[in-house]
């Protein structure tokens, strides 16, 4: 386990077809304790993915610092694994081959790769499908493989960018429950981007609300609900109250956007 410390982070992107840069996120400070499950919500384009990718070491840090377990982030590392929004499986590899892929890239030395991959495939409930190719799986199954591939390398930090974004509401709920079950097994530090407020509350210890232009943190809401959590929790008054607060925040952001469009 490792804690994540983000200090005054700024990420710049180049504007399309020009040399000008703009800040996608700016002055972000956030502390995540080891073993904590933190969700990031915010309107589209506010920089959620950018923040996640910077922790993954996949985008260049322009300002500020990120440290994980005290070590500054300067690129991808075996202490972190990413679950991307698009399952991004290798179409020419089977489920087993795909889960092995991360282990192969990391030159895993913690034992037999196939055994390790198989145990992760069992964990996400796909043991019967180990020999299937991605095009023979449903979207939900592909996301399970995506998650198993990340878990296989046994990262201290699990970074997830809307992993259930392409799934229908019901599958999404089931996957959320399963993700929690898996996470409660060994409590990795988790950073989870989502559009879905209920999903964020249900999963998290903390929900980070981001605003836009440039992406910044508006508020961090601690979710004080008992674990392990089950679907029943969705109907409790505390849950409803968290939902109300988060909705209000996001609605304000949307109203701001609307106002800006009119001004423009």
């Amino acid at each position: 386990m490792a804690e994540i410390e983000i200090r005054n982070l700024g990420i710049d992107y180049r504007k399309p077809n020009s040399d000008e840069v703009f800040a996608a996120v700016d002055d972000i400070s956030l502390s995540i304790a080891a073993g904590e499950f933190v969700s990031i919500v915010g309107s589209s384009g506010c920089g959620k993915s950018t923040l996640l990718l910077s922790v993954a070491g996949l985008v260049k840090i322009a300002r500020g610092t990120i440290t994980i377990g005290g070590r500054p982030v300067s690129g991808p590392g075996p202490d972190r694994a990413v679950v991307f929004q698009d399952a991004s499986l290798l179409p020419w590899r089977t489920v087993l081959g795909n889960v092995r892929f991360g282990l192969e890239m990391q030159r895993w030395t913690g034992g037999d790769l196939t055994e390790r991959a198989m145990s992760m495939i069992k964990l996400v409930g796909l043991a019967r499908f180990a020999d299937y190719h991605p095009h023979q799986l449903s979207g939900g199954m592909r996301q399970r493989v995506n998650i198993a591939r990340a878990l296989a390398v046994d990262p201290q930090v699990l970074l997830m960018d809307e992993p259930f974004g392409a799934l229908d509401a019901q599958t999404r709920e089931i996957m959320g429950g399963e993700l929690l079950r898996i996470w409660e097994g060994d409590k990795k530090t988790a950073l989870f981007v989502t559009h879905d407020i209920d999903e964020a509350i249900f999963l998290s210890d903390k929900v980070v609300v981001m605003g836009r232009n440039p992406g910044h943190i508006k508020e961090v809401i601690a979710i004080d609900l008992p674990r392990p959590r089950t679907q029943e929790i969705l109907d409790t008054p505390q849950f409803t109250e968290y939902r109300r607060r988060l909705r209000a925040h996001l609605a304000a952001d949307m109203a701001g956007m609307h106002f800006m469009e009119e001004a423009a």
Partner: protein
Amino acid sequence: MITDVFMRRQALILGTMSFIIIGVLWQLVVDFGIVNPFFISTPSAVWQELLVQLQDGSLLVNTAATLYSFALALGLAVVVGIGLGVLAGWFRDAEAALEPFIWFKYSAPTVAFYPLFVAWLGYGTPTIVAIAFLFALTPIYANTLSGIKNVDRDLKRVATSFGARPHDIFFRIALPGAVPVIVAGLRLGVGRALTGVVVAELFGANAGLGYSIAYYAQMLQTSRMMVPIVTVILLGVILTQALSYIEKRTEAWRVVHDN
């Protein structure tokens, strides 16, 4: 699956039927004196000639000669086309260095170089192979280049996130990801290599189907000439179908996105 098989059978039946109808029409327009057989011969006369050319062994000799040149040309084009395509797809500088040749190759008709090749290599197999090689090279090179160059960005990022090094990305992502596109290039290349061989043989050779076509054409023997023509068409169909089959099997390798 069932509808699939059914559709395939239906397509086969329809295809065969239209083929037979055209054959019958062909025979009829000559039999009824609508078209002079000198221009198009008749199916029955072609069949007679086919048997003759099979028996005297000339069809076999010519087909073998054509296939020999074809195999050499295609083999060369595959090695050079995939080799250069991979190089240019992976290294920007290599692509830039090769670009002028490719533009040249696209815009200039390859056959125009025929006399030059004759001057260098003489009449016969080397010149035929050289022309067919150039015919087949472009699609194989171009497809390999785009297959390698357009390596899927998401897969690349996944690999990078797991600590992949450049050679991992090349061998584990770019190369396998390019296979369907390269195979599609091969299918085009096969057809063009065959065309190249036949065209070059028309101009100057002492064996081969193209040579045979030109030979009988000079003798104004339409029925005899039809035999190598039909053989070439048959070869083309078989080779292209075989590649289409392989292409379908690599189709599952194409990257699919959920979003």
